């Protein structure tokens, strides 16, 4: 969905969409639910979409208001019998009829909708990933108050879909790690019109979001670029341009230690860092895995490289990316940035 598209009609109640409900149920119930989910999994294939909601895949149970309504009707029936009151019988039976029809209406409000995915925008690890889902109503009757939510989460939003129209809804999930984040199973549900029944179906669309590594905090500036021929550049430190930090090694000049950075670190785990400088070079900037201090973990390197990609992109420079088995030739622009970040995400 492009940023200029109108927002869908949706609404967020209760909890934040990404927070899963804690399961306080007894172990027996939890085990039963697990088995239920296994069974659901056999009935819910992972499909690329569009996925028409077939009536045999729509499940329906009474809500607590539905049970309350049943209790109300039972009370009214007893009253009608006790008073032999025909009009009380009539109202009770009318409401019973409405309740039974509401079951069909709730079911029919969901059946034959079609669920499809749209392109998923990448996100950085730790940020929410938004999976845009299209709900298509091909019938000549509008559908009301359709909810989309991850399995085991409360319904956070409702959307109306006019006759022969569609609506877009975003399912949000917090990304934790870089790489592909597949969309998990979600429910399409409704309690419309009367809230007495909860009808739902499970959908598992074969879509995934690309999660870029979480960028390192800004600060360390980009090292001077290396040569396109793969020549190492990080091992030629000079006094001219700050290119980054590496761990302190015996023999390093005292003046090259990053004293300010050291002061910012917690005293127990303080590791002195050495500032590295390189000569400025004309042309493309190379962001190289190997310029980073050898003691750094791969993830830390990826985080730093991600930061540098973002910085270089923000400064509008031409830059290339060099990873142990992957090279992105220098370039610039949105597509190049994505290519570099994707390489980092999938490293």
């Amino acid at each position: 969905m492009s940023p200029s598209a109108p927002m869908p009609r949706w609404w967020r109640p209760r909890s934040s969409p990404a927070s899963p409900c804690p399961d306080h149920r007894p172990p027996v119930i939890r085990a039963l639910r697990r088995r239920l989910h296994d069974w659901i999994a056999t009935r819910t294939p992972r499909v690329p979409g569009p996925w028409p909601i077939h009536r045999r895949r729509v499940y329906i149970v009474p809500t607590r208001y539905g049970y309350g309504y049943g209790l109300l009707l039972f009370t009214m029936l007893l009253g009608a019998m006790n008073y032999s009151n025909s009009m009380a019988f009539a109202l009770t039976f009318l409401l019973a009829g409405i309740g039974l029809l509401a079951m069909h209406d709730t079911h029919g409000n969901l059946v034959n909708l079609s669920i499809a995915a749209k392109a998923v925008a990448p996100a950085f690890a730790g940020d929410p990933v938004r999976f845009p889902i299209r709900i298509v109503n091909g019938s000549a009757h509008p559908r009301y108050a359709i909810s989309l939510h991850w399995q085991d989460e409360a319904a956070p939003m409702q959307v109306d879909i006019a006759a022969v129209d569609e609506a877009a809804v975003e399912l949000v999930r917090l990304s934790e790690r870089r790489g592909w984040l597949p969309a998990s199973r979600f429910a399409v549900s409704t309690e419309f019109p009367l809230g007495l029944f909860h009808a739902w179906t499970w959908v598992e669309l074969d879509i995934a979001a690309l999660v870029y590594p979480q960028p390192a905090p800004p600060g360390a500036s980009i090292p001077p670029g290396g040569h396109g021929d793969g020549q190492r550049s990080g091992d030629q430190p000079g006094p001219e341009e700050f290119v980054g930090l590496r761990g302190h090694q015996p023999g390093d000049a005292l003046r090259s230690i990053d004293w300010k950075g050291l002061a910012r670190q917690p005293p127990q785990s303080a590791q002195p860092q050495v500032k590295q400088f390189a000569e400025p070079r004309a042309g493309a900037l190379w962001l190289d895995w190997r310029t980073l201090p050898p003691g750094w973990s791969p993830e830390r390197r990826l985080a730093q490289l991600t930061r540098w990609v973002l910085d270089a992109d923000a400064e509008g420079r031409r830059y290339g990316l060099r990873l142990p088995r992957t090279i992105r030739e220098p370039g610039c622009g949105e597509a190049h940035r994505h290519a570099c970040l994707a390489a980092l995400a999938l490293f």
Partner: protein
Amino acid sequence: MARSDNLPPARLTRTVLLRLLAVQALVLAPHLPRLPLWAAGLVAVILLWRTAAALRGWPLLPGWMRVLLTIGAFAGIYASFGRVSGQTAGVALITVMAALKLTELNSRRDLMVMVFLSYFLLVTHFLFSQELWTAAYLMLSATLITALLIDANHAGGVLPARVVTVMAGGMVLRALPLMALIFVLFPRIPGPIWGLPADAGAARSGLSDSMAPGEIAELVGSDAIAFRVRFDGAVPPPGERYWRGPTFLRFDGRSWDGGSRAGLVDAPAAELRGIGYRYELTLEPTRTPWLFALDLPARLGLPEGAVINADHQLVLARGEVRERRRYRLQSHPDYRLQPALPAPLRALATALPKAANPRAQALARQWRVEATSDAAIVERALRMFREQPFHYTLSPPMLGRDPVDGFLFETRRGFCEHYASSFAVLMRAAGIPARVVTGYQGGERNTIGDYWIVRQSDAHAWTEVWLADRGWLRIDPTAAVAPARVERGIGSALDDAELPDFLNPALRNGYRFDLRARWDWLNARWNHWVLGYGPELQSEFLRRFGIDEWREMILALTGLLTVLLAGFGLLLIRRSTPRPVDDAPSRAWRRLQRRLARAGLPQAVHEGPADYAARVASARPDLAATIADAARRYIAVRYLDADSDGDLKALRAAIARVRP
């Protein structure tokens, strides 16, 4: 696409709140006249205040004030009724509490509670009234409450009132066949399950268990129905249409009542002669034990629970008539009642307060001296009423300390109770056992349904005197003064100025009278088939369909419900099925498909337009250029948002050029 609505979830919007208040007003309004004045006022004030608060954004009441109001309402109901349960007090309590709930109402959850409460308030209304119009009220209220329930379940913004009302109305209409089915087939059980509160059923109406001057005249203003009668075959002439009610033996100088009948509880001997009239009577509830019957009911085949009492009045052995009651009877107008009068009864039937009405007593004693027989005295008294200027009127002048003296010798203007009372006093003073009988006289024929309606306005009082060999003989002194009263009904016997409109003979013709008859007929059918649909009528009705007992009822109910619901389900599935795309480019393309199919080149299901065009081009090289052009244009117009009129015309032209 719909506009964006980011509402706070739990709060009600003002629109929905106002809709709720309107529905509450509809549901609470019929209860107001039955509430004590303070409670009705409180409910009305809360409704108005809450509406104003919603419109003006006033703050709601603080919690302690709501608690105080609730406690106060409880105390008030207890003070007004002496209890908080039972039909009237219980419903009053629910009504006030529903109104009080409005003061704290603010969230969607409250709305659900209010909707359920509204359904319940609606059903309590029928404890008090089940007339025909309440069916329309039921439909309207059920629709609007259901519309509110739909509102409560549409969190993402308020739907237009028309949309929810149409939706709810559609649900109610579709639920009607289900309702009818369950109504007919749900097995009814007789009687109350846990007993009725003492105040259940209709209010007391009609004749009372005593008679003072002016009391019956009050009933004449009421066109309420006392009972309806359907005769099997012959209908008694007007002069024999006396519907016997309570009999009064004791006179205190002014009013009559039953008095004590110690030792006189057995039904008197009655000798019935001639052919009887057989009829079915549908009695409206009176909250009395009296079952009215044409003079004089036969003792055989009495309705269930009914007995004949010492006055030969048909009454319930136990309890009161709280619901409409239908019974069959046979009556014989030619009878001899209690030919042997027990001495204690003779004493009671001739007792008079010594000091009261001295002039009447003196006159009667003089008649006694002059007369040769009791019958002659009776005739003498009737002649007096006939010959002296007595006047039959609904609004007699006030009477003083001795009402019988005042009536007989001064005002001479009175209603039936004056004539019956003074005649009985004269007879007793002359030593003839006499008593006052109240009931109804006459009735109006409904030509639509061929039955007779007896209204409260037909209430009447007459006398019975006991003559040796004859037993109790009905004497109606009013007939001596105003024969038209008995022959043609009260409307003919009174001056027009005194008559309520519904009795005015001048207004008893034409379409209004006809409409009234039709309306009553409809009500009678309603009473019979809907309100009277209990265990007996149900088994009688269902037997026609071969359904004999409750298991078969359940089976038929389940089967038919399943069929109906499956039908609705199928309808809904069909409604929800996506429509085939039917826009102008698709129609044009289908034309091309048909044409090529006739040429032996149908488009396969899996084939898109481009693949299809390629296949056609290779099969028919002569069409290659035109089909490629048509397909390109079709794809552009149908899929690439190039849907201007010019493009569409070009597409049609391109398709027309493909000529296999």
